[in-house]
């Protein structure tokens, strides 16, 4: 096991290195035009552009440029050219909000997906199952920002049942914090509920036919007990690993859209605003960090999976 972990971690570091190189290429090399003009954005004048060129080493070779860029990103020496504020600080400020959104949504979707998936599997082939399948498919077909915008408008603004966007610190008022997050959690979860409930359903259906379940039935265990003790637990392994991967994807992807619609001012919205301003440093930093996060989650999940399923370790 130990050797596997080491191998996997080394692999992770290599991927992170490659990710950083790719991000560097995306922002500084691939596009047309001068990177220093792109970075200067609204503040461009002759001297700012020259200053950027020197600071980032754009007149030197690619390797030097890469090292300079990475140094800036990781030592927190990165400054947004639009707001003139340090990128690292802004990301740290927004992080708790993004995590609040992601964790809450993840817990919500797991809970609902398990219930729906289980129910669907038990009633497989019947109307309830088909109906829930359609609902699940509708869920994965809806753009999260559209759902969010409509929810925010109808439930928040018009009916006033929920606040119309905004974020309250957990430390300030936990109840208000949750109250403000209910709509964003739901909007984000809808997408994943659809997907996960179907995955769980098919996993459960497979497991139900496995030998050990038949044995349990033969032993005289009740359906309910079988379901929960044997079936669910074994169906969960792939779910758990998937969950880990998707959590990374949510923090990376879904958050950027949901935060924008609900004005939560997290890391996602920070990145989205920078996109709108063509402000390169924040987008560069958030891209690298999010990709790193996903890579880390992938490694953690792999290690977890290997722990749970010894066969993997031998591959």
């Amino acid at each position, binding site marked *: 096991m130990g050797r596997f972990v080491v191998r996997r971690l080394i692999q992770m570091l290599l991927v992170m290195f490659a990710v950083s190189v790719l991000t560097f290429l995306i922002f500084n090399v691939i596009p047309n035009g001068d990177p220093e*003009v*792109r970075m*200067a*954005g*609204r*503040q*461009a*004048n*002759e*001297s*700012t552009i020259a*200053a950027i060129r020197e600071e980032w080493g754009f007149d030197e070779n690619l390797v030097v440029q890469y090292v300079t860029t990475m140094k800036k990103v990781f030592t927190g020496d990165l400054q947004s050219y*639009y*707001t*003139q*504020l340090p990128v690292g600080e*802004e990301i740290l400020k927004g992080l708790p909000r993004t995590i609040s959104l992601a964790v809450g949504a993840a817990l919500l979707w797991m809970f609902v997906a398990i219930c729906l998936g289980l129910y669907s599997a038990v009633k497989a082939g019947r109307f309830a199952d088909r109906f829930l399948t359609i609902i699940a498919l509708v869920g994965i077909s809806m753009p999260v920002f559209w759902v969010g915008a409509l929810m925010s408008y109808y439930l928040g603004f018009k009916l006033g049942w929920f606040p*119309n*966007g905004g974020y309250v610190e957990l430390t300030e008022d936990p109840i208000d914090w949750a109250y403000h997050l209910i709509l964003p959690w739901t909007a984000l979860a809808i997408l994943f509920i659809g997907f996960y409930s179907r995955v769980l359903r098919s996993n459960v259906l497979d497991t139900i036919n496995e030998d050990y379940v038949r044995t349990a039935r033969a032993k005289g265990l009740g359906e309910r007990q079988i379901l929960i003790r044997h079936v669910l637990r074994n169906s969960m392994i792939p779910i758990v690993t998937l969950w880990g991967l998707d959590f990374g994807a949510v923090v990376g992807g879904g958050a950027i859209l949901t935060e924008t619609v609900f*004005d939560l*001012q997290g890391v996602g919205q920070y990145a989205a605003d920078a996109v*709108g*301003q*063509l*402000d390169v440093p924040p987008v560069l930093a958030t891209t690298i960090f999010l990709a790193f996060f996903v890579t880390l989650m992938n490694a953690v999940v792999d290690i977890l999976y290997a722990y749970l399923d010894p066969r993997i370790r031998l591959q």
Partner: protein
Amino acid sequence: MGKLSRRTLALFLAVLCMAVVAACGDDDDDGGGGGGGGGGEAKTGGSITISQTSQPDFLDPALMYTVNAIEPSWLVYTPLLTYPRTGTDRDSELIPGLAEEMPTISQDALTYELTLRKGMKYSDGSPVKASDFEHSIKRVLNMESGGSAFFLGIEGAQDYVDAGKPEGDISGIETNDQSGKITINLTEPDGSFSHVLSMWFAAPVPSDTPFRNMTETPPPGVGPYMFTESVPNRQFVMEKNPNFPDLGEDIPPGNVDKITTLIIKNAQRQAQDVISGELDYMQDPPPADIKPEVKAEYSDRYEEVTTASTYYIFMNQRVPPFDKPEVREAVNYGIDKPALARLFAGELAPGCSFLPPGVPGFDEAMDIEECPWGNPNEPPDLERARQMIEEAGEAGTQLTVYGNNDDPTDKVTAAIADQLNKMGFEAEPKILDGGVYFQTIGSAKERAQIGFANWFQDFPHPKNFMFLVDGASIQPTLNQNFGNVDDPEITKGIAELNQEPELTDEVAERWRELNVQLVEEAHIVPYGHRKLATFLSERMDFENCRRFHPVYNNDYSSWCLK
């Protein structure tokens, strides 16, 4: 009649007198401040919350250059010269601020002498020294602020910039802390320099203010208000400055004690909050679809004012087909100004004058009634435009219309392209990101044919606008004369008038003639002047406590609660 009536009459008179006295003495001023309000006596005290849609670019007087930053900050940093805040026409004329008197300008117009008022303190209690002025200018130049260009005409300024050392000296500025005397030498006469001295860039800040962006901890200044808190992207707070000296009637202290500005991205929410009273003011106008409701139901606390700004279309005279004057004239005939005004939700006053109202040289007649291209409030002469373009052989010519993705610029650009199509061209809009727009069209390499442009005054001097059409200001990158306008007569005229040290009526008249010539010769296509809005909550006293300043927009120091 008789005794009864005389007594009755006396009683009646007594009651009448009491009523009059009661009415007169009602809005008593219990605070210390002077009058100077928008009409009646203002109630002082209280705390208000206002909103802006985006974070001010900087809360540092050396660096800031957006309305978001300037509207609150001019009340914190008073420069040597400033403008009255009376709510009358006088508000566009310079008066001494921190200086004792208007500057003494030498015969050759190269030397400006001023004396700092005695005994002034910054909001943190430290004394104001003459040498602080030089320090402020150094910060502007050393940090490569957007405002440095205004000060490069000072002797030694360019050398200071080239040397790159913050602690260096600017030879053209001499100060004496003992006497408070400040002497500034220019390399050549500059008629707008007094106005430059009134900009927030030139406001003195303590000499120990570091050479870096101080947005998170704005430096102290001399003004009715001071910054007490700054959390970028969330909020900043201003409170009355206890050390604000008496600078005369024309520069009153504020009424309200505390102003908290929140950054709220959603304009709809801001409007709803002003309506409900959660917010007391929103800096941006209410969004277009909520506007009719606001105008209809809340007209007692909503007003639109035309600002000294011009929105125009540039036509690059170095790139076909706009090298042909008849093509430029045709476009002027064909642009539908009322249509474009609709895209601003009515916040654009259609007009033909390049110099806007409020800037000397503005021609009211030419702006509307006597516009050479037709009344801007009427539909355009499309037929004539089409004909002229055909005769010039440019029907079907491909055009790329440049614009940026700010709102409503992208829509205006699409509309302009559509109108050019109706005139016979094959026009397509090209929308660039706001962050890079002006650099791109200002680059000669790009050869941008035609596109969106606008300018809001920095100060009410024609030079501030005319440099945009001055042949002498053309440069290969970061050019602001997007159309490369270089008419020899106009360029010469601008150069001559720039040297006039004072903006007398006669000088203003000559600027007006240049303005008219510019428009008549179809060098640009002005189509209107932007209006900004004042929308206050119920509890603000809209009637008596409201001033819209021609240079700095809404004057927070005029506000008071009911």
